[in-house]
């Protein structure tokens, strides 16, 4: 009985974890190759990477879980109608992500200013405004894109008669990692361009 349980869990988990691994390796390779250039623009970039990608994955997972619950309770049909309810969920998550990334931006700027006597000045004062806006913009975009991928996948999985709860959480966290790293890199590069650092 126990052996059967162990085997069953392994068989169910390994394919999903295998796909997650491939995406994680792509995200890791992107981080490894862009990090050298990104460090020149903003040396403390790694400080915000775990929080940035975590918010994206967590919030896209929340949208997926909420929409799946709406499907099972019959509030949404298989075509995700009424769209008002769907967009209300999406809008709520975008609002949450904007607040969370604003909080992250304030914390990162605070820590950077606190460390500036040790590491030296990184930006001119107005550069921090760009950093703040870039964190919010990149974060909200990453969350919106990951949520949309999660929603389309939930719709596809549900139509094929499978349970979205088993597929969406690992998918959104993995895609969230990848998109989070790509968007944060783009945000830092855009700041570098604006401030003339690259």
């Amino acid at each position, binding site marked *: 009985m*126990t052996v059967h349980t*162990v085997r069953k869990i*392994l068989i169910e988990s390994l394919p999903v974890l295998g796909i997650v691994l491939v995406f994680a390796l792509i995200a890791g390779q992107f981080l490894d190759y862009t990090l050298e250039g990104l460090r020149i623009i903003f040396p403390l970039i790694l400080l915000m990477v775990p*929080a940035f990608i975590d918010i994206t994955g967590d919030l896209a997972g929340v949208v997926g879980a909420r929409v799946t619950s709406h499907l099972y309770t019959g509030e949404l049909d298989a075509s995700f109608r009424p769209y008002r309810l769907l967009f209300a*969920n999406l809008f709520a998550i975008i609002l949450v992500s904007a607040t969370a990334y604003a909080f992250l931006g304030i*914390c990162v700027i605070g820590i950077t200013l606190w460390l500036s006597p040790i590491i030296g000045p990184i930006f001119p004062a107005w550069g921090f405004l760009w950093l703040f806006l870039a964190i919010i913009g990149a974060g909200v975009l990453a969350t919106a894109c990951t949520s949309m991928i999660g929603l389309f996948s939930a719709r596809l999985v549900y139509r094929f008669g499978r349970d979205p709860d088993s597929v969406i959480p690992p998918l959104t966290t993995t895609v969230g990692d990848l998109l989070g790293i790509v968007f944060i890199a783009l945000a830092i590069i855009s700041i570098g361009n604006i401030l003339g650092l690259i």
Partner: protein
Amino acid sequence: MVMANGGSRERRLIWRVYREAMPVLLFTVLAELFAGAMLLALDVHFASMLGLFVLIPGLMQLRGNISTSLAQRLGSGTHLGTISWKQGLNEPLRANIKVAFYLVIIMSFLLAIGAFAVSMITQSLVPRSGLLLDLRHFLIIAMGTALLASAFQVTITVTVALLAHARGLDPDNITIPIVAAIGDIITIGCLLISITFAVTLLHPYLV
């Protein structure tokens, strides 16, 4: 009138999601910033090690997917009455712990091989200067980190889930947020230990 009622229902939904999600998320941001500070310390000491950061998202994912799944299964087990503090380390609980470690060993082994292959391919296409890690380094760092972090996380997950259930709380609402908040801190702390071990203690023997 219908539209107005519908509109207010959606406004209530947006406000409820916002109110319920924000406190946990703000706490998570603070915990993840601590993990980020540790990652920064890792970068300061080991920036010249090429390919090291290929492992980071994979190790964090491994933690998330294995510990969160364990927390979910323990939650279901306590609801079904097959797992509890009083029953101790019974067969269902042992099976869940075993599976978590089997998955960690298999996936961290595959992660190390994948990270090594990806690093080698990209290094041959776009050469960079620095300390190129070999397969043994990747295996020691990935498997050492994953096993060490899992030992802490499985212990914490099991203890929190069983204690929450014993005190009449729902483990589903408590275990996952706790595991998620401290998971990355534990993983990066264990990564620092594994790299230090691989590079400073084993490096002379591995070269």
